C-alpha cells in the first residue's frame, strides 16, 4: 500500500464535491416528490398536467403496493420489448449511416434486459454494432426510464416509513414522470452541455476515415455521444456509447470532464440520502446513512488506490522502479497498465470504486489489469449489493434493507422489539429483507458455479486459474448486481453468457423491487411508535458503525470463499512469484 499527496488530495476533493452537492440536490428532490411549495405548483404542475392528460393518468389516484408493482412491471416489460424490437429491426430503421444489421436474438435479449434493469452490461461494442437510432431511442431512453424506476421505488419505500396506517403509496406514473422530467432531464441537459464544451462529440455524421501521421488509415467512429454519456453517468447506467466507454477521448476528453463525470456517478444516490432524511422528518437519519456509505466509499477508494500505487510485484521483482518521483525523473509510479495516463492512478481508482459502489457500469480504466487487491474492491463492492451510494434509488433501498437487518439485531440486543424510524420490524419485514438479499447473492454464486461447471462457461475467460475464475465471478456479480461494468477478459457475447447474464439481470432487478414495494406496503400499514429513551437511536455514530459492520460481515461472509479462490489467491500467488 502506497499513497501520494496528490492521490490523497484527489480522493478527498472528489468526496468533498459529492458531499457539498448532497444537501441541495437532496432538498430539491424532496420537493419534486412531495410536490409542495410555490415553485413546484407554478413550474411543475402545468407541464405535468399536459402529460397526464395525454396518457390518461389520474394523478390524484393513490396506489397500494400491488398496483404500484404491477404498473412498474408492466412498464418495464413494455420497455424491454421495445428495446428488443428496435435492436432486432435496426437494419431496416433510419439513422444508420454505417448500415449495421439487426442484433442477434441473444444479444438483443441481453441488451434489452441489461438496459431496462439499469445494468448496462454490454456484450457488444457500440461503434461496431449499434445504429444511432438504437443508441438514442433504445439505449439512451432506457437510461432515463430505468434510472427513474429505481428512484421511484426508493421514494415508495421512504413513504412506507413516513405514512401510517394506510395502503396508499403514491402513483407510479406521477412519480415516474417527476423523476424523469424534474430530476434526470434537467441534470442531463446541463451535464451534456458541459461535456460538449470539453470536447465530447455530439453529431449524426458517418464514420470518418483519416490518415495518421504514420500514413496508416484509421476509421473514427462518430455519433450523438454527449447526450448519452451524461445520463449514463447520472443515472448509474454506465453503458458507453463507444466500446472503450469513458476511457476514450470522445466520451471523456479532459481531466475536468473526467472529474465531473466521476462526480455525476454518485450525485443522485448521495442526494437521495438527504431526500430520505428530509422526508422522514429527521435529516440526521439521512446523514447517518450517508456517513455509513462514506466510510465504505473512502475505505474502498484508498484501498484500491493504495494497492495500485504500490505497483505490480512481478515487475518489482524484475527490478523495475515503480515508485513515485517528482523533479527531473518525474514519474507517477504504481501500476499504470490498463489506465489512461490522462487520468492516472488516483482518478482511475476513484472511478473504479465509485462505479462499483454505485451500480454504474462505466469504466475509464481496465479492471482486468488492476493488481489482485486493487481489483478485489470493485468486485467486493458489487457483492455487498451496491449499497455504497449505489444505483440511483436501488443503492438507498438496498442500504435501507441492511439498516432494517441491523436495527433488528441491535434492537434485540437492547431488549426491545426492533423498530426503525418508528416502524416495528416484525416477521413480515424480516422475510422480505431476507428475500431481498438472498436473491442477489444466490444469482451471483449459483450462476458462477454453473458457468465454471459447463463447457460453454469454461470457454469464456481469457485467462486460466484464479484470474480466469475472477473474470467469470465478476461478470455474474456485475450482472446480478445490475452494475454492468466488465472486468474484461471474458468473451461474453455467446448465447450461454448472453442468456444467463440476461436472466440474472432481470431476476436480480425485479424480484428485489417487488420485495421492496411489498416491504413499503407492510411498513405503511403500521402505526408509528413514538421515540423514547428506550428507542435505539439510528442517527448515532454507534449505529453507523454497526451498520457498516453488518454490511461488511454479511456481504463478506457470503463471498469470502469465492474471493479467497479468486483475487485473494491471486494476490498471494503474485507475491510468491507464481504467475497463474
Amino acid at each position, binding site marked *: 500500500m502506497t499513497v501520494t499527496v496528490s492521490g490523497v488530495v484527489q480522493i478527498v476533493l472528489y468526496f468533498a464535491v459529492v458531499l457539498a452537492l448532497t444537501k441541495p440536490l437532496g432538498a430539491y428532490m424532496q420537493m419534486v416528490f412531495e410536490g409542495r411549495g410555490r415553485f413546484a405548483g407554478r413550474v411543475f404542475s402545468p407541464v405535468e398536467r399536459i402529460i397526464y392528460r395525454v396518457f390518461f393518468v389520474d394523478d390524484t389516484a393513490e396506489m397500494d403496493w400491488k398496483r404500484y408493482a404491477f404498473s412498474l412491471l408492466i412498464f418495464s416489460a413494455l420497455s424491454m420489448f421495445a428495446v428488443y424490437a428496435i435492436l432486432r429491426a435496426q437494419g431496416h430503421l433510419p439513422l444508420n449511416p454505417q448500415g449495421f444489421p439487426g442484433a442477434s436474438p441473444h444479444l438483443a435479449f441481453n441488451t434489452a434486459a441489461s438496459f431496462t434493469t439499469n445494468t448496462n452490461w454490454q456484450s457488444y461494442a457500440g461503434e461496431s454494432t449499434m445504429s444511432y437510432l438504437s443508441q438514442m431511442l433504445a439505449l439512451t431512453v432506457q437510461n432515463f426510464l430505468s434510472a427513474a424506476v429505481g428512484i421511484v421505488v426508493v421514494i415508495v419505500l421512504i413513504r412506507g416509513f413516513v405514512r401510517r396506517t394506510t395502503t396508499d403509496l403514491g402513483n407510479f406514473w406521477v412519480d415516474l414522470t417527476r423523476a424523469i422530467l424534474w430530476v434526470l432531464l434537467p441534470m442531463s441537459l446541463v451535464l451534456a452541455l458541459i461535456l460538449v464544451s470539453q470536447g465530447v462529440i455530439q453529431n449524426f455524421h458517418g464514420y470518418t476515415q483519416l490518415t495518421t501521421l504514420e500514413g496508416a488509415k484509421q476509421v473514427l467512429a462518430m455519433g450523438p455521444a454527449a447526450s448519452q454519456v451524461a445520463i449514463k453517468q447520472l443515472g448509474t447506467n454506465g453503458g458507453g456509447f463507444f466500446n472503450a466507454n469513458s476511457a476514450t477521448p470522445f466520451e471523456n476528453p479532459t481531466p475536468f470532464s473526467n472529474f465531473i463525470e466521476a462526480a455525476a456517478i454518485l450525485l443522485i444516490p448521495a442526494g437521495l440520502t438527504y431526500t430520505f432524511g428530509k422526508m422522514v422528518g429527521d435529516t440526521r437519519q439521512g446523514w447517518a446513512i450517508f456517513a455509513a456509505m462514506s466510510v465504505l466509499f473512502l475505505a474502498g477508494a484508498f484501498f484500491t488506490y493504495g494497492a495500485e500505487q504500490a505497483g505490480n510485484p512481478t515487475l518489482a521483482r524484475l527490478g523495475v522502479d515503480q515508485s513515485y518521483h517528482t523533479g527531473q525523473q518525474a514519474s507517477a509510479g504504481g501500476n499504470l497498465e490498463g489506465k489512461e495516463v490522462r487520468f492516472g492512478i488516483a482518478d482511475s481508482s476513484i472511478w473504479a470504486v465509485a462505479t462499483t459502489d454505485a451500480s454504474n457500469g462505466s469504466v475509464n480504466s481496465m479492471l482486468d489489469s488492476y493488481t489482485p487487491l486493487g481489483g478485489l474492491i470493485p468486485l467486493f463492492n458489487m457483492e455487498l449489493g451496491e449499497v455504497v451510494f449505489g444505483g440511483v434509488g436501488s443503492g438507498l433501498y438496498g442500504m435501507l434493507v441492511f439498516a432494517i437487518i441491523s436495527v433488528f439485531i*441491535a434492537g434485540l440486543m437492547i431488549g426491545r422489539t426492533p423498530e426503525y424510524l418508528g416502524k416495528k420490524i*416484525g416477521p413480515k419485514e424480516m422475510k422480505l429483507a431476507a428475500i431481498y438479499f438472498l436473491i442477489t447473492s444466490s444469482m451471483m454464486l449459483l450462476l458462477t458455479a454453473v458457468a465454471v461447471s459447463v463447457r460453454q462457461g469454461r470457454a469464456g475467460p481469457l485467462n486460466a486459474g484464479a484470474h480466469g475464475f475472477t473474470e467469470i465471478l465478476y461478470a455474474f456479480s456485475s450482472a446480478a448486481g445490475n452494475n454492468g461494468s466488465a472486468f474484461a477478459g471474458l468473451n461474453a457475447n455467446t448465447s450461454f453468457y448472453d442468456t444467463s447474464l440476461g436472466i440474472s439481470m432481470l431476476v436480480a432487478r425485479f424480484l428485489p423491487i417487488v420485495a421492496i414495494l411489498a416491504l413499503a406496503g407492510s411498513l405503511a400499514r403500521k402505526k408509528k411508535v413514538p421515540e*423514547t429513551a428506550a428507542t435505539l437511536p439510528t442517527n448515532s455514530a454507534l449505529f453507523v458503525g454497526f451498520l457498516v459492520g453488518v454490511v461488511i460481515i454479511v456481504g463478506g461472509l457470503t463471498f469470502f470463499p469465492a474471493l479467497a479462490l479468486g483475487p485473494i*489467491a491471486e494476490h498471494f500467488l503474485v*507475491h510468491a512469484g507464481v504467475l497463474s
Partner: protein
Amino acid sequence: MREQVSREEETAHKSEIAKLRKSRTSIWNWPIIGRATIDACKKLNPLHLLGNPVMLVVELGAGVTTVLFVQELLGGRAGPKFFTGAVSVWLWFTVLFANFAEAMAEGRGKAQANTLRSMKHDTMAKRERDGRIEEVVSSDLRAGDIVRVDAGDAIPGDGDVIEGVAYVSEAAITGESAPVLKEPGTDIRSSVTGGTIIVSDWLRIRISANPGETFLDRMIALVEGAERQKTPNEIALNILLAAFTIIFLLAVGTVRPFVAYLGGTVTTTALVALLVCLIPTTIGGLLSAIGIAGMDRLVQRNVLAMSGKAVETAGDIDTLLLDKTGTITFGNRLASEFIPVGRHSEREIALAALQSSLADETPEGKSIVELAQRRGYAGATLKAGTELIPFRAETRMSGIEVDGRRIMKGAVDAVTRLAVDVPPDVERAATRIAMEGGTPLAVADDGEILGIIYLKDTVKPGIRAKFEEMRRAGIRTIMITGDNKLTAATIAAEAGVDDFVAEAKPEDKMQIIRDEQAQGRLVAMTGDGTNDAPALAQADVGVAMNSGTAAAKEAANMVDLDSDPTKLVEVVAVGKQMLMTRGALTTFSIANDVSKYFAILPAIFVGIYPQLAKMNVMRLSTPQSAILSAVIFNALIIIALVPLALRGVTYRAAPAGQILRGNLLIYGAGGIIAPFVGIKLIDLLLVLLHLN
C-alpha cells in the same frame, strides 16, 4: 385435629417452595442435568428438529459424514478415517449440546411444574346440590358449582367467595406465609385459588373454572414449555437465521464447483464442517432454551403470563398506568396524628393506642406504635395477663383486655357503638379526616372514647426509585386517582411519577389508555377490580393482581401472584432480557464466523494454492486439525453458553445507545476474538495429544 393436618401440609408446601427456589438459583442441579442428558438423546429424532432449520442442517450434516465414515471404515471408500470419524462425532455432539440446552430449560420448568402438580392432587369437595351437600372429587367440579369449605380444607378449585368471611393461606401459590382475608362482595378479596388452604372459619364458593382450565393448570402448562408458542420476535429471528443458513449453504455449496474449475478437490467432510461452523448454530441451538428459561424466570417472580408474547410486549412498554391507592401509596393505612376528643389529652389517646397496638402485627398497628414513639410516648409494655382481642371481620375492631378493662380501636361507627357517651368532636374529626382522603380510627377505653387516630395515605418507600428505574428504561408513569388535583399533585411529586390524572372515575382509565395508544404508545396497567377489566383488556399489557376478581384476571394477560403492582418493573426486565439474550447470541454467532473462515478456508484451499497458507493466521498445525478445532469449538461454545441462555443477559435500565454499546463490545467484538483464541487452544491441545 383437622387444623393440625392443614398446618403440617402448609409447612410441607412452604419447605417445598423453599427447595424449589433454591434449585432455581443454581444451574448445577444434578438430577435435572441427568434427565436433560437423556432427553437430549431422545430429541435427536429429526422430526423434533423440523422447527429449527439451523440444527436440522447440522443433524443432516452429521448424518452425511457418519455415512462417509462407515464407508471408509468398511474399506469401500478411501479417506482419512480418523478425521471423518472425529468430525462426525463432534457434529453429533453439536446437535446433542443444543438438545441438552433445550432439555435443561424444560427440565427446570418441569421441576417447578411437579411441585405445583403435587398440590393439585384431588381433594374431596363439598358440593351443594339441591339444598344438600354431597362429597365429590375436586376434578368433577364444573364452573358454576357451589362448594363449601371449612377451616383446614383445601379449596377445591378457582372461584369467587359468595358467602362467609375467612382467612386463606396462599403460601402454596405465592410463597407468602401470612394468610389473607377473603369475603364476598369486594373486588379484591373475593377470589380464591384452587390448592390454597382455608385456615379459619368457612366460605361458600362459586367455582369459576372447569378442570384443566384452572390457574394451576395453566401455570403448569406454561412452565413446562408444553404450550409455548413462538413470539413474533422469535419468528422474525428464525427467519433471519434461516436466511443466514441458506446464504451459507450457497457459499459452501458453490465451493466444490469453484475448486473443481481450478483443478483441485475438497472432501465432503470438510465442506460439511465448514457449513456447520458458519451457520448460526450457537443461537440456533440455544433459541428455544432462551424462551423457556425466560418464562421460567417470570414464574420465579410469581408472575403468570398468558403468553410469551405478553412478556415481550412488556419489554416494549412506553406508558405505565397506576392506581394511586394501594399501588403508589399504602392506601389510607399509616398513622400520622392522634386527635384527642372531649376532655381527653393527646397523651391519653396515644398511650391507649400504643398499648392496644403493641401486639398488633398489621401495618396499621405497627405505624401506631411508631407514631407514639415519635411523639415521645414510648416505654409502654404489655402487662402480664393481658388478653388479646383479635380483629374480626364482623366486629371490625381489635384490642386488648387488661385488668378487666377493654381498650379497643377500630372503625369509628363500630367503636362508637360500644360507647356510653360520644363527644360531638368525634364526628367532626372523623369527617375532616375522611374529606382529606384519610381513614379515621376511633380508640375507646372501656366504652370511653379517647380520640381518633388519623390514618393517612403514605407513599410506599422505594417506589420513587422504581419509577426512576422505569424512566431510565424509557417508560412514562401516569398515576390515576380519584383525589382532588392538589392532593394528587402532592403525592405525584412525592412518588416521582411523570404525570397524573386527578378526580378520575374508573371508566376514565379506558380513555387514557386509548389516547396513549392513539399516539402509538404501548400501555401497561395493573388492576384488580371488576371495573378495571375493560381497561385491562384494552391495555397492551394488563397485569391483574391475584387478589383481584375473576373478571379482572380473565381480562388481563398477566397475573401477579404476589399482588404487587410495581412488579411490572421486573416483568419489563424479564421481557427485555429474553430479547437481549437472543440478540447478543445472534451477534456472537455471526461474529464467530470470521475466525472460522480463517481456520477452515486455508485448510481446504491449501491443496490447490499452497500460497493460501498465509491466510492461516492462527498458525494451526495441520489442515485436518484446523477443521476439527473449529468444529470442536463450535460445539463446545453451545454448552459453554447454556448458563447464559438460562440466566439471560444482564439488564440494567439505561439509555438504548449505552446498552447497545456494552453488548456490542462483549458479544460483537468478543464474538470475533473469542473463537480465534479458542480454536488455537483446541489445536494446541490436539497437537499435545497427537491427534492433529
